[in-house]
């Protein structure tokens, strides 16, 4: 709880300092920043509503413990694939998914699967035409395939390092 409060304080302090500097030294930049801020907020509102509804529905219809058991059973290649696919189809800013992932983490879902989910949020089928436009079809296909493959390796490396940390801390005790 203390860490949570510290983080909030840190954010507001950083935001306040930036705001102070901008208002003091650059009125034009302040206007642009504020316009952009509200533009993002308005763009995000529908996503917020959608995510909120999904949260309610998930909580209402799905027992997290059962879901965790289901994911727990999929700790093989299928688990990686499901986590990766979930990351790809997930929408909205990354930080909006943290609470749900936090819930899953608390219920024992492996960090490798959470990492794979987070990494694959970088792959967005809807944005691929834009990537093709700038970098070409071959590049886009190769990058997408490489990123999906590397996401699994990335997840396994994160898991391994965190496991080593746990073993090390147990030895220290």
């Amino acid at each position, binding site marked *: 709880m203390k*860490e*949570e409060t510290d*983080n909030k304080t840190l*954010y*507001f302090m*950083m*935001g306040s300092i*930036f*705001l102070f500097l*901008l208002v003091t030294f650059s009125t034009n*930049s302040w206007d*642009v*920043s*504020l316009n*952009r*801020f509200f533009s*993002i*907020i308005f763009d995000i509102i529908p996503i*917020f509503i959608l995510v*909120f509804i999904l*949260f*309610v*529905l998930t*909580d*209402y219809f799905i*027992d997290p413990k059962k879901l965790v058991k289901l994911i727990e059973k999929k700790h093989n290649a299928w688990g990686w694939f499901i986590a990766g696919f979930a990351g790809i189809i997930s929408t909205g*800013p*990354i*930080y*909006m998914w*943290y*609470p749900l*992932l*936090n819930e899953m*983490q608390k219920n024992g879902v492996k*960090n490798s699967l959470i*990492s794979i989910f*987070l*990494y694959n949020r*970088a792959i*967005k089928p809807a*944005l691929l035409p*834009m*990537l093709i*436009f*700038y*970098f070409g079809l*071959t*590049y886009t296909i*190769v*990058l997408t395939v*490489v*990123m999906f493959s*590397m996401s699994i390796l*990335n997840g396994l*490396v*994160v898991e391994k*390092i*965190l496991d080593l*940390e746990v073993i090390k801390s147990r030895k220290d005790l």
Partner: protein
Amino acid sequence: MNNLNQSIKKSAKMFGRIMPVFIGLILLLTLIMVHISSSFYSLIFGIHPLIDPIIGASIGSIIAGNPIESYIIGGELLNHGISLIAVTSFIVAWVTVGVFQFPAESMLLGTKFAIVRNVVAFIFSIIVAVVTVGIVGVIG
């Protein structure tokens, strides 16, 4: 199956808890993004072919935003003669490493997890860039 009212209350409580972090995060992102133009990036690349991907990944990690913005900046960097490896590491780090999201990630998923995940994602952004450009080079 839970009670619907309970589910709504639980979700609202969770959103209320994290909302100040989101607002602060978006505010910070907009303030910084407005002050960094795409021409700025062309000044810092081109030091050394081996260092460029690291610089690309570093900038991509610090700056956050919609992937489309990274494509646009990446496309412009490419037009300015920046190497494809540097641009790729920039694009990959932009979406996989989150320095600005770090406080939120560390608050909800744990500090150790957030540090390890972001450091590993940073290293992988360079590996992904090297592998991707290597394969594209072979395929043609």
